[in-house]
């Protein structure tokens, strides 16, 4: 079975959208001065890469990798999507959450010490 042209187009479009999202968020990380905005962009970057990871395990006409009692094993193996990227992404999401939580605590402390979250002003204040 091969994919039709329109199906391949839609898949490629999705993939490119995800890559461009990652690029836009990296631009946000670099270009925006506020630390809060940088953290928001970082979370978006993580999200887009996670979805990309799930996307490589995707296949059309499929079912999720959960074996319900009524489905036979052979049909399940033949139809289900790839479970491994999902497990990897689960790990990545938790790690991203941990780092982001810590970054928020740090940003609060930065604000307590400097009185601002604007990187340019922080650089000035540090001398």
């Amino acid at each position, binding site marked *: 079975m091969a994919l039709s042209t329109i199906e391949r187009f839609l898949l490629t479009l999705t993939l490119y959208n995800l890559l461009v999202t990652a690029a836009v968020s990296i631009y946000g990380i670099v270009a925006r001065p506020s630390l809060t905005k940088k953290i928001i962009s970082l979370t978006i970057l*993580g999200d887009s*890469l996670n979805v*990309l990871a799930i996307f*490589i395990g995707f296949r059309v006409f499929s079912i999720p990798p959960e074996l319900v009692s009524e489905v036979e094993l052979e049909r399940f193996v033949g139809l289900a999507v790839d479970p491994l990227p999902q497990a990897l992404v689960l790990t990545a999401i938790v790690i991203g959450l941990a*780092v982001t939580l810590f970054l928020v605590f*740090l940003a609060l402390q930065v604000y307590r010490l*400097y009185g601002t979250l604007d990187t340019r002003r922080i650089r000035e204040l*540090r001398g």
Partner: protein
Amino acid sequence: MHAVAVAPALLVAVAFTLPLLSLKVRRAKLFHGVTLATTSAVLVLTVYNYAYVSSSGRPLVYRMGGWPPPLGIVYEVDPLSALLAAYTALVLVAVVAYSSWYLGEDSGLPYYYALLLGLEAGLIGIYYTGDVFNLFVMIEVLGITCYGLVAYYRSTKEAVEASFKYAFFGAIAGLLYFLAAVLIYASFGNLTMGFVAAFSRPTYRLIYWNVASTLIWGNITAATGAVLALSLWTFTFKAGVFPNHFWLPDAHPAAPTPISAVLSGLVVNAGAYAAVRFLYTVFGVFDPLSEFYELSGYVKAVLMAVGAVSALFASVMMVVQTDVKRLIAYSTIMHLGLVFTGFSLGTPEGVGASVYHMLTHAAGKALLFMSAGVAIEVSRTRRIAELRGVGRVYKLVGLSTLLSCLSLVGLPPLAGFFSKLVLYQAYVQSGHFELIAVLLTSSAIALLGYFKVLYPIVLGQPPVGSEVARLRGFGLAAALLIPLVLIVVLNPPVVGGILEQVSRAVTDPGKYIDEALNSFINYVSRLYLTSGG
């Protein structure tokens, strides 16, 4: 053989219990004791592993949970990883002893030690793991503990800001490595380093045609290009070399001194190790048998440029510093630059020399940070001009400052001299005379910098009264003695054999690949026998 898996797991298990313990007991000695006991136990385990691996002559594969490789995670320990892990554990024992002197009765002790144990678990996990994605997880364990420890002095501006910068760019680096790991899975169809390495070599692909044709799922050449670009960015970030060094001179000085010693001495090695593992073992960029051998020219040029620029740039920056810890941090960038130039050669000599340099640098840098830390604690400032001459009162500190500086500069008969000599020989052998110029120039410039540190600590105004009382401490002497012995002992007659074994294992990863594949094949054949019989 279980020692491989137990070492990091034991560390995190103890780290889990420390906050619970702190609710019942408030005595600082308990935390010092528990942590010291744990790190010592891990030292025993890692040394045992090293002995096992080096005597058996083959890498050790531990199947986590009993699962065979492509299904489960394996820890694969070859001489390089075993050596680095054992060395790390040894230096960390010294650091924990130093921490017991440095922190005393600090209120955040359980958190500090939990993070330190997590850091050690992350380091040993990075060295031991044989799985591409598990490496990502361990990098993040290492990362988050480092960020937390850098921010330990939360009320100083520079610590918090440095930690934020480190954590933020560390998070981006981690994400990029995650993408690299996913791309490896996408094209190679599995995540075990040994398997990926086997599939990068056409000969192995032919021999294990069955496995390879089933698992490989995409264009591995295209994927490898992207993976190398992404993962090298991450590894150079972790190692703190030139284009990605920007966080290091802020973060290393801001941490508590024992942590500065760990970060500068040990954590940067993890980045260098991971780069070597990927370049030499997994993708075999310098291995003529590999499909990606044609990339070696580019990789060589990139690594060489990175290493040379960081060595020269950092040595110049060292001289202009007025803050003693910043100066030492720049010296770290310089030494890691030299390590990367050694790795860029692609020869066994270059690898051996670089690993040797990593070891001597770790000991020397830890020792220098710890002895300079004594002076900083006593004189309550980090400005070089105002440091007290602690060396006049406490001879051990003076001696260790002197020896560590001389070792880092590379004066005989200390370890640093020999490692630079071996590095020099490696350059000569592969005909890269421009690197010799880099080595000599950076060392000469750095000499000025080291003398800026050496002079006030050894010969400066001696401390008086209450400042001297601060110098008493059992842990301090023990902490300084371990790396001191190391920089005296690590000379070619002692380590020559070890390094040869290591460099052979790295440049010829045949055994590494064989063991990973064997682990899978053994399992499958035994399964077949039991079910068939």
